[in-house]
């Protein structure tokens, strides 16, 4: 169960923005490291809902995950 302390971490980990490391690989969200197992599972569930909402509101049905991936491969 999220607490006032863990809630922002869960929300941050449930976002779609991810940095890349020097090799170009997608890095884990900094907030994800600060969560315990239960918090990580809550972040997963929140991400599922977030992506569904994003895709439903997008004219092309793309979630932020899809948009982030497409932006990266277009830049490559």
């Amino acid at each position: 169960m999220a607490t006032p302390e863990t809630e922002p971490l869960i929300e941050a980990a449930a976002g779609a923005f991810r940095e890349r490391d020097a090799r170009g690989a997608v890095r884990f969200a900094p907030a994800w490291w600060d969560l315990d197992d239960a918090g990580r599972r809550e972040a997963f569930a929140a991400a599922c809902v977030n992506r569904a909402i994003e895709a439903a509101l997008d004219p092309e049905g793309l979630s932020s995950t899809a948009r982030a991936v497409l932006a990266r491969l277009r830049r490559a």
Partner: protein
Amino acid sequence: MQDLDTHLPGIVGGDPDVFGRWVAACELPLRLGLRSFAATVDTEAVLQETFLRVWQLAPRFEPDGRPNGLVRLAARIARNLAISEQRRLRTDPADPTALDQSPPDDATPALRPTGDPFLRRAIADCRRELPGKPAQALAARLDAGGAEPDEVLAARLSMRINTFLQNFTRARRLLADCLRRHGIDLEAELA
């Protein structure tokens, strides 16, 4: 059953718009397929890396004659990446819970219909009911499309990062409450 391999020629031809349609159709089942790894790896990072690798590997992909070959390849890549990350982080890669819940490598993730017009309309209607700050936080992430960190979005809205995240959480909960009034339990559908 929907066969997303119809997108293969466009993907192999390097058309990102076609790849986007393929991603839109299979993202959810692939994400749900990583549920058993949620406590041990950042599944969002694994999924994004999976899509980037599929894009790179697609020109060399050889269909096996069964539907959704590229989705099955993506499911295998996602699972192998998750296991590889577990090993790198020295968490228990042989966690029986994870293994029991994992599909066999050649399993086709259940593809669900996307673009449900009723759901889209309900979410759009509910979004219009959001109060100012939660609506702003939701719009900021939607506009960013996963390309900017929350810190940048928060600063643009003159919010502290925790305030921004609290507003986003509030937006999701208000949307979920509103959708339930429309007879849609998004969380239950994704469980």
